[in-house]
């Protein structure tokens, strides 16, 4: 495995006006791990992902992806935005949305061809939504929308993925599909950073976890850092049953 971390964030601060959304964040994600980013509302989870991808300006700090600047590592990153960030009434089909994941690789001006259609087909089959290929996207259920986004991430064939709340409001089938996909990605040595909200499932699904509340409270292997104490410091004691949660999860 590579010694260079998949993601290396140093001294990252992001502010909206002069209110910091992220404050002096240092974060290292080794290659090949599944990492959850957990924290209360307004903790800057989505901001962290967007700043890591250079989608919003940084007030300070640097982001390295496999030792490269974000702009140079575009081909190595995959991004699954929040499902609610797009308008699902857009006049297009599932396979079209999935193919959009290949646009970066295609570059400017080039049109998708037979190779891209084949790749799209494979991704749809892998996620188990091949039968929805020509479906208009407004007719999808929430879970189907999320799986469409995952298939789109899959065709990007990235080395490090950033997923923003993929588990938010999905059905059980989709949740299982996402978990299977995450495990497949890890088996292929890919790195995945997932913004996650379900504290219960963190120890089951993720090797590593970052507890975030504007600042990084703790980050590392789940077994080491996912403790009651750290959760309390992250959520400020506002989450009922934190003790029960960690007791159950961690033997």
């Amino acid at each position, binding site marked *: 495995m590579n010694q260079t971390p998949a993601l290396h964030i140093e001294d990252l601060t992001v502010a909206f006006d002069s209110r910091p959304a992220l404050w002096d964040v240092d974060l290292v994600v080794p290659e090949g791990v599944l990492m959850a980013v957990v924290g209360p509302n307004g903790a800057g989870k989505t901001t962290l992902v967007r700043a890591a991808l250079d989608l919003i300006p940084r007030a300070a700090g640097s982001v390295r992806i496999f030792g490269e600047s974000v702009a140079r590592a575009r081909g190595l990153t995959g991004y699954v935005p929040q499902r609610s960030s797009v*308008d699902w009434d857009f006049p297009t*089909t599932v396979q079209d949305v999935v193919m959009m*994941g290949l646009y970066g690789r295609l570059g400017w001006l080039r049109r998708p061809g037979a190779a891209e259609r084949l790749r799209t087909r494979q991704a749809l089959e892998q996620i188990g939504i091949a039968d929805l290929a020509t479906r208009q996207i407004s007719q999808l259920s929430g879970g189907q929308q999320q799986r469409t986004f995952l298939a789109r991430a899959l065709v990007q064939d990235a080395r490090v993925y950033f997923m923003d709340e993929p588990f938010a409001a999905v059905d059980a089938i989709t949740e299982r599909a996402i978990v299977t996909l995450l495990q497949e990605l890890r088996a292929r040595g890919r790195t995945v950073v997932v913004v996650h909200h379900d504290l219960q499932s963190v120890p089951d699904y993720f090797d590593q976890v970052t507890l975030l509340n504007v600042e990084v409270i703790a980050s590392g292997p789940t077994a080491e850092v996912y403790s009651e104490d750290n959760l309390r410091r992250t959520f400020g004691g506002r989450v009922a049953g934190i003790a029960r949660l960690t007791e159950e999860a961690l033997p």
Partner: protein
Amino acid sequence: MAILEALLIDLTLRVTDLQRLNAILGDPQTSALITGALVAFAAALPGTFLLLRKLAMTTDAISHTVLLGIVLAFLLLAALPGLEADLNSPWLILGAALAGVATVLLTGAIQRSGLVKEDAALGLVFPLLFAIAIILISRLTDDVHLDSDAVILGEIGVVWADARSHCLQDCDEVHITPDDPRAETGRRCTNCAELDIGPRDPAAEFEEYCVNCGRYTAAEAWRARLVSRAPTQVFWPRAITSMLLVALLNLAFILLFYKELKLGTFDPALAAALGLRPALLNTALMVLVSITAVAAFDAVGSVLVVAFFIIPPATAWLLSDRLAHILLLAPLGGVLASLTGYEFSRGNLLGIAQMRDLLLLLDKTIGLDGFIEWNTSISAAIVLMMFLFFLLAWVFSPRQGLLLSLLQHRARRQHFAEQLLLGHVHHHQGTAEAASELAQDRLHLHLGWTPRRTQRVLMRLRLRDLVASEDGALQLTARGERSVRRFMALRGAGGASPAGD
């Protein structure tokens, strides 16, 4: 522009002769028709993306604020030495494009500031810029033909008047020198003014000079009878060239960047993450919208141009849920609406002959003098026609049409009524009270329906062989049994709630 026109003339002359071409171009109606179709085509392409980005009203703002860009560019040109300020200068287009982009940026900045909510920012920016433009026009450009009425309303009927002449044959400039045989010689008094005397005064001195010496363009030479053959000329309306250019520009932009525009519209975050610069592309789109709005000024004005951007794509969206199809249908629909709208402006509504009689009747009954000379603003008529198309699409749309949903609603109601009746039969057949419950002539009393409705539902069920009657009492057929069971199973699974009320 001139070169492009020459090329166009060359091309058109291959399919028609000169006389006919001049007749076509010189005819106000034909050139209005061509211009209208071009505006519709050019605007529908970027309009589709504006609609998808929920920026419909931004078009309205841009189509007004570009005026400020034009005025500022015009004043700047007038102030700079060595540059001629004229209303056809391409620099004005640049000014307009900058103003369009400025509108979008300014609106965004005000939105982000949180001083006012979303659309209010637009309402703040665009009247401001437009007001400045109007003040500048009325204060500073008294001697220029740029009045606010023309900008707001436009008149497609007069685009033919602003034409550029292109000479094809016998175009040589004529230079008359004093030794030319065509030179005419005259005499003039050299000291009359000086001595304040008349030419008849004996002290007057004379010299000979050439009366008609100088340079003549071919047309001037013909008018002065200096040449024996008239130059062959074509008068090409400028509006047609600029609209055609803009239409081609828009088409090229969308063909080249279709994929980038699609992703940038659907999911700008991913587009940015993939390095496809959605912000840059958005600016380019706004530049094109501004240019299109400016080019369409003369023809349709700044108010109605919004309709050209928005209504055809909105209509196309009702008819299809594929972006590529919408991009094809929208310009086609726009062109069709402008052709029929043009006819409508002359009293012909989609070739319906009664329209004329109707107008005549209106004229007689209400006494609208001259209403029968139904000759209205062409651009307004086109917009009405676009809206009519929109209504038709809404009613007949295969996706979310009014008709379709009414039919579906009706079908659901009918289906439910049928299942109700079948269920009733299923429930009571073979029981002791079957004879009274299932007697055909009493059925409606049990269901609480009108006899007519009961009969209609029964008839449909009979036609599909779901019920049969035995001794005046109803019975389910084998198919009827299956249908009931299927419906029950669905209800059990929570699938079919009584959707048809």
